[in-house]
C-alpha cells in the first residue's frame, strides 16, 4: 500500500465503522424509496397512459391535468404539500392511516410515486402514440380485439420505444430522491448531512456520498444498456 494512503487511513477519524454503517443505512433507505416509487409508479403509469391516449376527452383530460400539474411543479413542493398536508386532513389522526403517514417515509414515497408516475405516463403515451399504424391494422386484420391488440402488439412495441426515455427517468428519480433528506428521512444524503454536521467536514462527507450516487448511476446506466440491447436485438446489424 502506498505510504500516503496508509498515512491517510491512520489519521482518518471520519470514515470509521460507525459512519460507514450510517452510510449503509442511508443507502438502504434510498434504494427502498427509489425502487418502490419506481415500481408503483410504473404500474400506475401503464393504465394512465392508455387512458391518456383515449379519444374521449372526458377520459383523457383528467389524466392530462394530473400529468401537467405534477410535471409543471417542483418535486420539492409536492413533497412539502404531502408531508405537511397529510397531518392537516381533518380526522386523519383518528384513522389507522395516521400510523402509516406519521412516518416520513410514506409521505415521501407517495410524493415520489405520484411524480414519477406522471413523467412515466407521458413517456409511455409518447411511445404508444408513435406505434406504426400498420401494426395496428395488421392486428385488426387478424381479428384481435382491443385488449389483445394492447397486450400483444401495442404495449410490447411501445416498451421498446420507451425504454431509453424511461432509463433517464429512473436516473432522474435516483437523483431527485436526495430531497427526501429534508423531511427528516436519513437516506444517503441525510446520512451525509448528519456526518457533515458532526465532523464539520463538508468535503469528506459529501464527496463520499457523491461517489456512492455515481456508482449507483453507472450501475443503472449499465443495466439499462443491457436491457435495451435485449429488447432491440432484432434491430441489431448483422455484421459486427
Amino acid at each position: 500500500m502506498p505510504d500516503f494512503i496508509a498515512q491517510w487511513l491512520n489519521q482518518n477519524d471520519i470514515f470509521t465503522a460507525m459512519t460507514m454503517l450510517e452510510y449503509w443505512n442511508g443507502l438502504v433507505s434510498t434504494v427502498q424509496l427509489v425502487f418502490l416509487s419506481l415500481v408503483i409508479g410504473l404500474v400506475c403509469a401503464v393504465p394512465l397512459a392508455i387512458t391518456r391516449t383515449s379519444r374521449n376527452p372526458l377520459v383523457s383530460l383528467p389524466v392530462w391535468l394530473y400529468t401537467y400539474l405534477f410535471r409543471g411543479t417542483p418535486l420539492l413542493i409536492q413533497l412539502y404539500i404531502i408531508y405537511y398536508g397529510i397531518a392537516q386532513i381533518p380526522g386523519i389522526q383518528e384513522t389507522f392511516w395516521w400510523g402509516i403517514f406519521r412516518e416520513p417515509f410514506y409521505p415521501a414515497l407517495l410524493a415520489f410515486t405520484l411524480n414519477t408516475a406522471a413523467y412515466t405516463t407521458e413517456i409511455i403515451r409518447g411511445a404508444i402514440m408513435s406505434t406504426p399504424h400498420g401494426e395496428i391494422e395488421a392486428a385488426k386484420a387478424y381479428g384481435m380485439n382491443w385488449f389483445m391488440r394492447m397486450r400483444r402488439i401495442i404495449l410490447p412495441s411501445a416498451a421498446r420505444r420507451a425504454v431509453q426515455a424511461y432509463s433517464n427517468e429512473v436516473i432522474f428519480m435516483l437523483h431527485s430522491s436526495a430531497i427526501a433528506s429534508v423531511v427528516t428521512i436519513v437516506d444517503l444524503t441525510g446520512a451525509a448531512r448528519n456526518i457533515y454536521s458532526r465532523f464539520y467536514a463538508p468535503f469528506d462527507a459529501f464527496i463520499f456520498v457523491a461517489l456512492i450516487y455515481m456508482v449507483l448511476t453507472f450501475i443503472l446506466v449499465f443495466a439499462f444498456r443491457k436491457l435495451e440491447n435485449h429488447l432491440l436485438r432484432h434491430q441489431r446489424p448483422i455484421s459486427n
Partner: protein
Amino acid sequence: MLDLKGYGPALLDGAIITIELAFLSLALAVTLGLIGASSKLSSNRVAKGAATAYTTLIRGVPDLVMMLLFYYGGQVAVNNISDLLWEAYEIDFFFQFDPFISGVVTIGLIFGAYMTETFRGAFLAVETGQIEAARAYGFTRWHTFRRIIFPQMLRHALPGLGNNWQVLLKTTALVSIIGLTDMVRVAEEAAKAERMPFHFFIPVAFVYLALTAGSELFIKWLNKRANVGVVQGG
C-alpha cells in the same frame, strides 16, 4: 380573495429571487454549455477529456448533493484560502459564501453539462459544407462561428434548450434547502407558523406552473420564429 396572512410581500420577493436565480444560472449554463460543446468537438485531447469528465461527473451526482457540497464546502475552502493568504502574505481576504451564489454556481454547473450535450448535437447538425464554404470565402474561425455556425445551430439547439430550461426552473426550488429565502422557503416558514400547508404551498406551486407554462409558450414561439423558411418534412 386569497388571504396570505401578511406573507404576500415576502412571497413576492421570494418569487423575484427565484426568477433572478433561474436567469443567472441559465446564463452560466449556456456559457459553460458552449465551452463544453466546443471542447468536446475539438481535436485537442485534453479539452475533449476534460469536457467528457465534466459531463459524466455532473450527470452521476444528485443536484442537491452538489449544492450542499458547494455551499458548505465553498465556505470552508474560502476560510482555508483566507487563513493561508493571511499567514503567508498578510493579505486580508474573506467573503461570506452566500446561498444565492452557491445556488447560481451549482445550478449553472449542472445545467452546463446538459447544455453541453444539447449544443454538441446542434453543432453536429450544421452541415460541414456550410463551414467549408465559409472557410473558402476567407472567414476567420471566429467569423465562421459567429456568422455561420452559431445562427444555424441555434435552431437545432432550441428544443433541448427549452427542455433544460423547464427542468432548471424547477431545480431552483432546491436553494430553499441551503437557506436562500426564495418563495419555497417563505412558503415553508409561513406554512409551519400558520399550520396551513395547503394555503401557502399551493399558490407557490401555481407560480411555478405559470412560469413553466409561460416558458412553454415562449419556447414554442421562438421555435416557430427560428424555423421560418425551413420546410418541415412529414
